[in-house]
């Protein structure tokens, strides 16, 4: 697969006049009325992997070794993550393997380390300092360096300099200071602002999924991150790091529920060779997200109705288009696919093995794009009755009970009204024009921005969603859930309200929303403990 370059400064100027220029230092407005709780968040496996790579200076196999993340509000970046016995044991083993053959000649280590003898305390201190700064995402204290030097002495005793550093590295990889990102502030009885070190750590992890780089650490130590412009300037810089793309791919996959794609199967009656197709579907979504975030700041409109995608060859015939140059945009409006909701990855994820699932597709749109809370049938005392297979009926006909039974209709009118719009895509996401020998009916409806819209298909839906204020507000909530690592309805509402005066470039693009959050006091302040 060819990966497109990660180019972001193209649009940075549209988002901020401060791209690449020094921002004036201003003081914070202070604690907002609604604040997030102070938290201790275990890094997600992806963050642990990225941090370990930075620390070791080369790729690790940490992510493969660790058990998968628990997700909360759909996101793996969340405050519910814990360090359980299995994870700690596997991290212990992985750290031992990863440090067994350290190459101290790498640029990641101070130049003195390559030939240092075990009694070279100056070089040990120099090396330990640099490593701890990366691992802790801040400057270590003198006491912390002393503690690590004591470990260096244990590791190098009767052995060599490298063994001492290897033990320090193991200590850092298993340290709570490495594994947890804190947003505790400086303490005290009232609302608290994050420490300058926490601001740097949070900013970097949230915007790039990586530990802070040298420039950010310096900015943090100079106190520049206490101001909104200071944070924005650093965030805009971090967005240009190519590693950032992984974070936004993951954000979109988790937001839209596409993480399950890799664990999907389809009946051989629907399509053959699905495992290869689902790989291609993941590639398509990732390339498309790279494009929309890289060139259009993560425009919500472009994601939903940009009219194009980046189609891997393995999907070209499935979509009915000619193969294109790697990484090239392909116009897909003519084949009924205008955005991410018509990409096969979304359509196949929200479908059963052998048949479409209007309820799942409708629910995905209503909960993930409009942030609606829907009751479960059992909450209402309703038994789920799966419509029986019927070779002579269309899916719409089989689900007709949803429209005739008053209790079912109370929810399914909206769910199925959206889901039926996608009926021209089968369970694997391939276009179809008929079912059970009858033409497909893709008409449906949605209540959006206070209006009931009658629509003829999902393309019209995507166009409506792309221009919807309700979708933009929901997108802001999703960014906040991802950033906070939890759902906090009061802060979400306050954040959404505060965005209303902002430009469409800011509240209509995901990167604009991330930047607005990072600038805001909700990022920088926490409730009292």
């Amino acid at each position, binding site marked *: 697969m060819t990966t497109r370059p990660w180019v972001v400064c193209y649009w940075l100027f549209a988002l901020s006049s401060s791209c690449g220029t020094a921002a004036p230092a201003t003081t914070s407005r202070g604690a907002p009325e609604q604040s997030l*709780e*102070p*938290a*201790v968040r*275990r890094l997600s496996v992806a963050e642990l992997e990225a941090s370990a790579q930075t620390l070791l200076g080369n790729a690790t196999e940490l992510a493969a070794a660790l*058990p*998968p*993340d*628990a*997700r909360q509000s759909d996101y793996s970046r969340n405050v*519910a*993550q*814990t*360090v*359980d*016995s*299995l*994870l*700690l*044991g596997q991290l*212990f083993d992985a750290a031992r393997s990863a440090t067994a053959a350290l190459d101290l000649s790498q640029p990641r280590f101070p130049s003195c380390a390559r030939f240092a003898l075990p009694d070279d305390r100056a070089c040990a201190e120099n090396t330990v300092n640099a490593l701890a700064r990366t691992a802790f995402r801040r400057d270590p204290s003198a006491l912390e360096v002393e*503690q690590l030097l004591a*470990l260096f002495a*244990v*590791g190098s005793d009767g052995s060599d300099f490298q063994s001492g550093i290897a*033990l320090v590295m*193991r*200590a850092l990889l*298993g*340290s*709570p*200071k490495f594994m*947890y990102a*804190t947003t*505790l502030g400086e*303490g005290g009885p009232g609302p608290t602002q994050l420490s300058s070190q926490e601001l740097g750590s949070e900013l970097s992890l949230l915007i790039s999924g990586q530990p802070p780089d040298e420039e950010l650490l310096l900015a943090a130590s100079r106190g520049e991150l206490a101001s909104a412009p200071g944070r924005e300037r650093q965030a805009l810089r971090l967005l240009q790091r190519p590693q950032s793309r992984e974070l936004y791919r993951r954000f979109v996959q988790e937001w839209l529920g596409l993480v399950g794609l*890799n*664990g*999907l*199967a389809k*009946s*051989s009656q629907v399509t053959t060779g699905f*495992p290869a197709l689902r790989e291609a579907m993941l590639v398509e979504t990732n390339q498309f997200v790279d494009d929309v975030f890289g060139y259009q700041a993560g425009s919500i409109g472009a994601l939903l109705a940009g009219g194009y995608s980046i189609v891997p060859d393995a999907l070209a015939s499935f979509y009915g288009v000619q193969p294109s140059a790697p990484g090239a945009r392909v116009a897909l409006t003519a084949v009924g696919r205008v955005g991410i909701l018509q990409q096969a990855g979304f359509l196949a994820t929200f479908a*059963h*093995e*052998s048949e479409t699932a209007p309820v799942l597709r409708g629910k995905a749109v209503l909960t993930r794009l409009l942030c609606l809370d829907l*009751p*479960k*049938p*059992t*909450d209402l005392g309703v*038994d*789920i*009755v*799966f419509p*029986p*297979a019927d070779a002579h009926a269309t899916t719409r006909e089989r689900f007709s009970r949803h429209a005739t039974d008053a209790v079912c209709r109370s929810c399914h009118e909206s769910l199925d009204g959206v889901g039926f719009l996608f009926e021209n895509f089968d369970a694997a996401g391939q276009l179809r024009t008929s079912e059970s020998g009858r033409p497909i009916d893709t008409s449906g409806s949605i209540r959006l921005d206070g209006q009931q819209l009658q629509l003829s298909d999902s393309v019209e839906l995507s166009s409506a969603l792309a221009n919807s204020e309700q979708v933009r507000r929901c997108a802001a909530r999703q960014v906040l859930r991802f950033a906070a690592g939890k759902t906090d309805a009061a802060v979400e509402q306050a954040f959404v309200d505060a965005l209303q005066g902002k430009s469409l470039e800011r509240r209509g693009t995901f990167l604009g929303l991330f930047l607005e959050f990072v600038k805001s006091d909700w990022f920088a302040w926490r409730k009292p*403990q």
Partner: protein
Amino acid sequence: MIRRSSLSISRRAALTALGAGAALAALLPEVRPLRAASSPAKYFIGVYMPHGMAREFWVPRPGFQIAYEGSSLAPFDDAVSFGRSFRDQIVTLEGLDLTAGLRASTVGHDASRVILTGSGKDGQNASIDQFLAVEQGLGKDTPLSSLVLGVGSAEPALQWCISYAKGGTALPKLINPLATFNHAFGQFLVDPDPAASARAAREQRLGKSLLDYWRADLAELSARSPKAERDKLDQHATALRELEKRVLGQTVTCAVPSRPDPTQFPAVGSYQGGEPYFDLISELQIDLMVQAFACGVTRIGTLFLADLSRTHFDPDLPEDVHTDVAHRYASPGRNGKGSSDAASQARLARQNRYVYGKIARILQRLSASGLLEETVLVAMSDMGDPSKHSSRQVPTLLAGGWGGALRAGRHIDLGAEGTPSNRLLVSVQQAFGVESDSYGQSADPSILSGTLALT
């Protein structure tokens, strides 16, 4: 480093890894002692079964006949396949609702979360296995406090987990038998290389230094963290204690099972090509768990069995068991409402019987190891009627001797109105000598207390 050649040597040998059993007790925290019970149970196994249950072929016939034509319970009375009948070692328990889930919108597939926690999705308490292992200290003297195993999916998500730590976070599962073997037995294998003991002694010294360092770090973080975050950090402290046991080395005397041959299960994930191997993987996981009990590696285990779609274990059933068997099940249930389709009931019963075959294997292994009488086994699905995704009337299997707290060989019917499953968890904890009369969390505390008459 462990060399593969050591494995044949170590089998059926008394294995010692850096023995430090005596020193260990002093390093472990004090745990609230179990309160008095005459002969409390010692082992716990919780099993999740997929697909709900075909009630028509599950309810025993008069005289506790369980091997009738089509019965899903037949494996428990099949001496040919399992060496003996376990008819006198099981109770079929009818009438439990996963009520805590019904009260907290944690139903359908999500209700697997309720099975051992007695709580909905926002519950903060541990599942009963972790409560016994960690909070009640049943796992403190064994190298591993518990084994959390699965087949097919390692995802720590509501639909895929029955084991939860205090604080409410799902615990990850081991789904690869080789990983299970390494986790449970790897530390006890003896490396015959003469240089190995020197290396091991050094590694122990380094490990102690690391543990001291991490403990101090964690204590410092815990001290400045808000109360709401403490459960999480306590779990980390528990994990460090577990790691400490491994670093310091423990002694077990038992027959270590053979190392599973990974070429026999080249894939292990659901929809990742693992399905053809799920039968073998399930059996290996079961054998390793019971052997870990027999070796004193742990006394607590859970097993999350996989959805059986696409396994082709039963050529007479459709490929997509989930949709075409479980979703198509048509039963009027206990209240007599709804349509009935005998063929659909028989199909689901075949799947249920397959899964009960695996549980019979657990009983067979426990029996052979002499552990059955002291074991509490609970097997449950997240649903009763799977086509309705109903968390009511979930047929439940209890097995083992429960240390005398279960009078087995009978059917218990709690009635059609539905009894909160929390009562089962209360009975389980009492079988281990925990004198508390409630379990779980709910906005409706009335569902949490009470026991079942099991003796």
